[in-house]
């Protein structure tokens, strides 16, 4: 049957399916593939309308060769999913030219389904999922249409049939989705070509964090285990510790240096806070944690200074669970080596700053706390917290402290550490995020790239590493509110561009938050279901024993399939025939069966009526007439309708008589 020709409707549905499958990939497909694919669709339409013949095999061979060369040029050496999908799309496009028999159509639709699934490698939004569901419907309708007789031209039935197939499949999908064990990848695959993502880099120079402050991109989202989130002033999310200064940039400790540092000792002084982070892909290996995590999550590394690292750059959204304390003592004692590391400064440059620091050091009488107070007071006098601090040249710290006096958090943090170190107080720059927007609908905290922040940790005798945020001295409101709110209230020029006024309206914000909450739920419960699966199933099923899982799969599965089966056979299980004559005849058989003799299965209706005629003389003529009409209806060639018109009154008469007899 597979060599049968398919209907013209089916050809159109195939083309529509192909275009629908192609659409999600347009964002990244090389332009020539898109053009070729659309040209093939157009060519098939020309063939369809009879204006062009089916192409010669030489032409097809040429197209295949050209596409092959094009693929090598576009994707040579790249083994990521793009190359695979591009190859499949090209194959589909060329197959369109051959679309004639049912076999071709089947192959086309099967590959199209696969390509449709790959759309999720590139886009994972709810909208994409809804779109894909619609395309699956279209694809099933196309699959139904190729099974139809070539002559059929109705559009609706394939869609109806596809809907009837799809609807019961949805609960089945849900059950399987919830229960199917998520396996580790069987072999390592290259995820899509890394896209340029914004995020913290592993070094910091003035102006870099403030660039991030303009980005609306989502950084990560946190939900806390039932507890209220920590106060805004405690929402410091550490990512990197930068302890090496080269006169201009702050860097992470080199691997050799890191080996000399001991893992820092943490003494918790508050109850740990459990939370879960959903981190957006950053293309970088560092992870964020609320101030100080007690331990790393599975598969992560904890650096000596208690920041978290992933073994590989984060190329996809990940989810991990941590416990942190916000009140603690960290590393109360430093070795000489460590002390030396956190005091490192280049031997030259920024002389005026060094002089200022030693002046304060003398003023404070060698007490670090008083030194720090002097420093912060200095910042409070005449320094401006801004997103547009202007460029700094050589001796940037001198320039910042004595000339521009305008800066973003990284300027203040860098200068503070420099000043502290120059007088012998161990200090380091910490970068990460500060604050976050609380979403009351889904109860989570959302941090964007613009919440990126840099601050200082200073080591004080007897207290260990203590957080010191010079930005708080300059702009205390920034700590309490988000960057956005802070600069909007101040009307900072660098921030005003881009956003319309209406987005600030209260209802718009609420709407946006609802949408974001929905997105977060989507990310947590669908896209990252694997990290919820175990707990969820344990809660729902009361355990994870095999029998529970099997029952949980079989019971709903059987219920759905049973419902479909019942629906399929509904007419036979129902109340009997709908046809009035057949229904009345049935009633008559029941009544007369009780009164006289039941009809034997082997007996035809007419034979039975004739036996009754002998036993019920009053109605003999009616019975015999009915028997004759029944035979005529079954075997004769006379119009069915006409006979039925004559049978109905007879049946009614007999029914009345039978009732009267009782």
């Amino acid at each position, binding site marked *: *049957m*597979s060599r049968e020709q398919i209907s013209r409707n089916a050809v159109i549905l195939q083309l529509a399916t192909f275009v629908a499958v192609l659409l999600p990939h347009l964002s990244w497909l090389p332009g020539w593939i898109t053009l070729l694919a659309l040209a093939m669709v157009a060519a098939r339409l020309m063939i369809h309308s009879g204006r062009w013949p089916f192409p010669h095999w030489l032409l097809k061979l040429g197209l295949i060769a050209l596409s092959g060369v094009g693929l090598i040029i576009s994707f040579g050496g790249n083994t990521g*999913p793009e190359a695979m999908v591009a190859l499949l799309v090209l194959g589909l496009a060329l197959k369109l030219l051959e679309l004639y028999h*049912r076999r071709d159509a*089947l192959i086309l639709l*099967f590959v199209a*389904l*696969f390509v*449709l*699934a*790959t759309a*999720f*490698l590139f886009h*994972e939004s709810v909208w*994409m*999922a809804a779109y*894909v*569901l619609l395309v*699956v419907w279209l694809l*099933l309708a196309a699959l*139904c249409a*190729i*099974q*139809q*007789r070539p002559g059929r031209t109705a559009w609706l039935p394939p869609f109806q*049939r596809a809907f*009837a*197939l*799809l609807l*019961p*499949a*949805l*609960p*089945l*999908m849900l059950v*399987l*989705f919830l229960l*199917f064990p*998520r396996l*580790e*990848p*069987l*072999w390592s*695959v290259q*995820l899509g070509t890394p896209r340029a993502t914004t995020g913290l880099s592993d070094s910091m120079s003035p102006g870099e964090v403030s660039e991030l402050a303009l980005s609306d991109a989502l950084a990560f989202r946190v939900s806390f285990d039932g507890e209220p989130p920590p106060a805004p002033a405690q929402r410091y999310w550490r990512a990197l510790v930068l302890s090496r200064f080269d006169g201009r940039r702050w860097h992470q400790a080199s691997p050799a240096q890191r080996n000399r540092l001991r893992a820092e000792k943490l003494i918790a002084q508050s109850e740990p806070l459990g939370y879960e982070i959903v981190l957006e892909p950053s293309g970088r290996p560092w992870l964020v944690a609320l101030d100080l995590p007690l331990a790393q999550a599975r598969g992560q590394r904890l650096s000596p200074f208690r920041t978290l690292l992933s073994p590989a750059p984060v190329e996809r959204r990940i989810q991990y669970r941590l416990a942190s304390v916000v009140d603690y003592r960290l590393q109360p004692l430093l070795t000489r080596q460590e002390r030396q590391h956190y005091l490192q400064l280049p031997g030259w440059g920024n002389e005026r700053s060094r002089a200022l620091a030693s002046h304060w050091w003398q003023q404070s009488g060698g007490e670090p706390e008083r030194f720090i107070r002097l420093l912060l007071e200095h910042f409070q006098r005449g320094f401006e917290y801004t997103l547009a601090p202007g460029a700094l040249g050589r001796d940037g710290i001198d320039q910042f402290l004595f000339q521009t006096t305008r800066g973003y958090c990284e300027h203040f943090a860098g200068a503070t550490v420099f000043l502290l170190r120059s007088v012998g107080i161990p200090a380091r720059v910490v970068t990460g995020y500060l604050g976050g927007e609380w979403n009351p609908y889904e109860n989570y905290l959302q941090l964007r790239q613009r919440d990126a922040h840099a601050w200082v940790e200073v080591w004080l005798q007897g207290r260990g590493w203590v957080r010191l945020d010079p930005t708080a001295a300059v702009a205390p409101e920034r700590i309490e509110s988000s960057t956005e709110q802070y600069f909007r209230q101040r009307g900072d020029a660098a921030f005003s561009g881009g956003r319309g006024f209406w987005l600030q309206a209260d209802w718009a914000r609420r709407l946006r938050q609802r949408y974001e909450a929905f997105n977060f739920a989507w990310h947590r419960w*669908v*896209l*990252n*279901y*694997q990290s919820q699966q175990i707990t969820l199933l344990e809660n729902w099923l009361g355990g994870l024993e095999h029998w529970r899982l099997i029952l949980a799969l079989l019971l709903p599965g059987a219920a759905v*399939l049973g419902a*479909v*089966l019942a629906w*399929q*056979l509904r*007419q036979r299980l*129902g109340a009997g025939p*709908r*046809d009035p004559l057949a229904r009345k005849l049935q009633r008559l058989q029941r009544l007369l069966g009780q009164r006289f003799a039941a009809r034997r299965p082997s007996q035809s209706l007419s034979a039975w009526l004739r036996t009754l005629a002998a036993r019920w003389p009053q109605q003999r003529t009616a019975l015999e007439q009915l028997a004759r009409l029944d035979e005529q209806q079954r*075997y004769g060639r006379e119009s069915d309708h006409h006979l039925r018109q004559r049978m109905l009154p007879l049946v009614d008469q007999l029914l009345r008589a039978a009732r009267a007899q009782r």
Partner: protein
Amino acid sequence: MAEPLRTRLRGRVRRWALRRYPRSRSVTLTQNRIFILPTRAGAGFMLLLLLMLLLGINYENNLIYAITFLALGVFLVACLHTHGNLAGLKLQALRGNPCFAGEQAGFELELDHPAGRRRERIALQFERGVPLLIDLEQRNQRLELFCPAPARGWLHPGGLKLETGFPLGLFRAWTWIDLELWALVYPRPLEGELPVQQGNGHSGEAHQGQPAGSDDFIGLERFQPGMSPRQIDWKSYARGLGLQAKQFGAQRSPDLWLDLAALAGDLEQRLSRLTYWVLELSRRERRFGLRLGSQELPPEQGEHHRHEALQRLALYGRGGRG
């Protein structure tokens, strides 16, 4: 190797299915009569599902898992739909139409199914016949199926296979039923010399091979089906006397006897020759009798007589149905 094995397996399934239920005039397809298996396309679909699952596993993509499970769900539901396309269908054997050996015998069936459902693309086929593809939209439908009739006698078409791949072609549901259906197969007509014997001792040479005469008008007779329309007396019809047939002298001529014994050679060939002449004489509207060994069919003419003669020829020396 695979092909013969498959054919053998199919044959075994057919024999088993036909043995399970007795031959009957009417059959309702219940669940336990219907076999269902994935087609080659269905196997391809399962492979596709496996590939999609691998894609989901390797890229740890939950949405790909979801679309894979959705497709699996559709696959399972399609199995039920394919099954449902046959289940509940009622077949009623109507009659077998007579034919000549070497032709296709037609068998009339009535398909009946609960209203409100569409059944599409059901292929009906006798074991040796050609398939007929139908879409069922009304409540019941009559159709004629053909099966080759190789030899004269009563022909039973063998098992009837109903098969469907609807709606997605991923599954094939089929069933074998044995319907109480018989067709009478007449011998294949074979042209030849008229094996004639004039009845009642008259010498018949003069009439041998002579076409139906139209000599003298004798009178009118009531028109009966089977008479030639050329005989109709239109004048009396116009006078409102109903259809009357004109009778001519030649038709009263001495009766012809077709005799098996008058022919030599193979029995089947002789029967075939007689068949030819039964048809030919009936066409010429001649009276004739038929003598087959001890059986004798007195001279007569008309449709009924022709049928009677052909039936005797078909069944000569053959047992009944069975």
